[in-house]
């Protein structure tokens, strides 16, 4: 970057690299994922309302909801919804721990970020395996 010194001479100064060139630390990924899953769940909450309204309205309306959920797009949305729910749940618990003052130590930040991701994968897989088994495999 070219600027002027205090006596007016032009000088080339070093410029710190733009944020875009850094490799994302896992803490940054964990942080933004919490917000992304939050927004996804906000949209996904429509499914909860639709499911309840369908159940309240009667067999035809409920069958309509069920057929959408069982469709390829419905299943994909439900998978994203489940993963988002578990991520936001575990990351939310982490936030509550932070609010109590725990978990800020440097050595714990990275492992806990990975643990939140790992728990999300495990819980999501667990629910879907259980669902698959219950539906008769």
């Amino acid at each position, binding site marked *: 970057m070219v600027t002027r010194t205090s006596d007016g001479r032009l000088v080339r100064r070093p410029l710190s690299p733009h944020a875009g060139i850094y490799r994302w630390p896992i803490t940054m990924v964990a942080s933004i994922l919490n917000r992304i899953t939050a*927004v996804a769940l906000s949209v996904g909450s429509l499914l*909860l309302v639709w499911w309840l309204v369908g159940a309240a309205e*009667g067999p035809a309306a409920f069958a309509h909801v069920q057929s959408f959920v069982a469709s390829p797009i419905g299943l994909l949305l439900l998978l994203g919804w489940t993963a988002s729910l578990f991520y936001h*749940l575990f990351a939310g*618990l982490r936030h*509550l721990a932070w609010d109590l003052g725990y978990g800020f130590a440097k050595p714990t930040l990275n492992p806990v970020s990975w643990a939140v991701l790992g728990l999300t994968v495990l819980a999501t897989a667990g629910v879907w395996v259980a669902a698959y088994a219950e539906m008769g495999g």
Partner: protein
Amino acid sequence: MAPQKPERILVMRSQLGRARGLGAAHAGAEHWWAERVTALALVPLTVWFVISVLSLLGADQPVVAAWAGRPLNAALLLALVGITFHHTQLGLQVVYEDYIDSITLRHALVLATKGLCLLLALTAAVAVIKMSITLPGAVPGAPVH
């Protein structure tokens, strides 16, 4: 003659308040606190809901409606939708405040979101209440006249 009123009042604070430099409402933490309290409540409610849905998998409408209509389930569902949408609108407001520069657009989105969340919560609540109120002797899920 009284001083002329401006076309639009831009600062709705008293001159004394401005001069003193005060004006905090002494109430800034409610939003932050409500977000945490609703989050805490949603932990057990969400776990309960996921387990319940798993147990209802593939069930027909009368079974689901009868399940949702049982008093404890209905109460938990009402708590779930009420607290979920309260938490949702609190959280989305922060997202707007972080990323949207235009005050007009930000306020419009916040208000629209709050309104939509209220309507969705009410719709879900009415559905749950409908399933929980059946006439004496009525078969759950059967048409009520």
